[in-house]
């Protein structure tokens, strides 16, 4: 009995350093806002651990005492017990709850504190199983990779196209759901440039676990440059000068891709899948499941179901020449 209890406590204690040693997790915030949440988290963990241990002790003590003089409870003792119940059962919990609530409100306020009116706004729209990313100020559309300026609060507006998803980038903020028919908002801020990985945190179907997101925080100049580049349409091609790229574009426009994907600057304006206008600039493919390199890209186009079973993108059959040209074309969309 004692052994088992000790085991549980030891396991619990072990879990804490294990969790906190994971780099890049919730316990290693990289954002002034997430910093406050983590303070709250530690205070709550500390307080509840102390109370838990205290209560266990009290219970043991009560059990032993009850068995020793069960039938001999006298009037005076009952009075003392009444104080214990009033103090320990009402006063103490009320105090603890009030303190924790004040802290929670403080942390909650700092998370939702409005960003300035000139703050960047990013619209994130959940799809099974990828993230559409829009910057309403500039009209640019991309997917699965959010760029933000570091050291500035950024408004994130969250919507869903189908079912409930949840946006969670642990190093930057807590999670918030994306709910169909509703717009939720969140403010994130990265304290320094870097890359932060996130994950859908609300079960949304077969490829829920394959719905990852990447936040790239960069200094203001690089960010502005990124916005400008991403806003450009794909370059116009003509068959005489860029025969191979033109072939590739024809392969895209001539097969099913065009029904689902947009490449701005071409006739392709499908919206069932991610915008591919600057696909070559993204680090990873398929909602950050595979690196964006030629082999992965080819394999994904020919057999997406092997990479992400259940994904909404069907396999496409292409001839060797079409595939090579299509790969060259997509790789040119920087």
């Amino acid at each position: 009995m004692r052994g088992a209890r000790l085991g549980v406590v030891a396991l619990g204690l072990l879990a804490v350093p294990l969790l906190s040693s994971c780099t890049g997790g919730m316990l290693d915030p990289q954002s002034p806002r997430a910093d406050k949440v983590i303070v709250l988290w530690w205070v709550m963990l500390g307080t509840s651990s102390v109370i838990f241990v205290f209560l266990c002790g009290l219970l043991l003590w009560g059990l032993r005492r009850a068995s020793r003089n069960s039938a001999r409870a006298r009037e005076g003792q009952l009075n003392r017990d009444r104080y214990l119940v009033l103090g320990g059962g009402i006063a103490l919990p009320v105090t603890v709850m009030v303190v924790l609530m004040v802290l929670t409100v403080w942390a909650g306020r700092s998370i939702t504190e409005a960003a300035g009116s000139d703050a960047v706004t990013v619209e994130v729209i959940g799809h099974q199983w990828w993230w559409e990313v829009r910057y309403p100020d500039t009209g640019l559309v991309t997917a699965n990779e959010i760029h933000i300026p570091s050291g500035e609060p950024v408004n994130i507006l969250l919507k869903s196209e189908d079912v409930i998803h949840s946006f969670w980038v642990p190093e930057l903020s807590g999670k918030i759901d994306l709910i169909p028919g509703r717009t939720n908002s969140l403010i994130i801020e990265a304290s320094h440039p870097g890359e932060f990985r996130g994950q859908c945190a609300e079960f949304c179907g077969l490829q829920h676990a394959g719905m990852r997101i990447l936040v790239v925080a960069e200094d203001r100049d690089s960010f502005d440059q990124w916005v400008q580049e991403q806003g450009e349409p794909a370059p116009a091609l003509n068959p005489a000068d860029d025969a191979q790229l033109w072939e590739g574009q024809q392969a895209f426009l001539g097969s099913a891709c065009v029904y689902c994907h947009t490449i701005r600057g071409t006739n392709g304006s499908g919206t069932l899948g991610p915008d591919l206008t600057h696909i070559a600039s993204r680090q990873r493919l398929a909602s950050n499941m595979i690196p964006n390199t030629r082999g992965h890209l080819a394999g994904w186009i020919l057999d997406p179901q092997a990479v992400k079973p259940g994904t909404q993108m069907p396999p496409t059959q292409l001839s060797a020449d079409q595939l090579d040209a299509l790969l060259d074309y997509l790789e040119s969309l920087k």
Partner: protein
Amino acid sequence: MTGRRFAIAVLGALLAVTAVACSEEDHGPLNVPASADADVGKQLIQSYGCGTCHTIPDVAGADGRVGPSLEDFGHQMYIAGAIPNDWDNLVAWLMDPQAIEPGTIMPNFGMGETTAANVAAYLASLK
């Protein structure tokens, strides 16, 4: 109990001896030059993403089914059912598959000779 353990140990030892004997008489068609580095090749395979089309042993996530599995490729006699699997042919295949088998869906990666040699060295080690 000890009897059984002893028997297992003997069996294991026997197996090890046969395995060694087998690999001694191994005469794969691929003679890898010392300059080609299989470890570098493995990393290249990982970063190109060959594994999204091929199943390749010991490469993370390499369980693709678009093309043939490359398991045991060091023992395979032909490349793409077209040319003998010797060193020069393998390097040539990796540098430009369509030059060898027009119409094959395996993409051209624009590999230089050194890169192709490193990749080939890893493929040759798959036995």
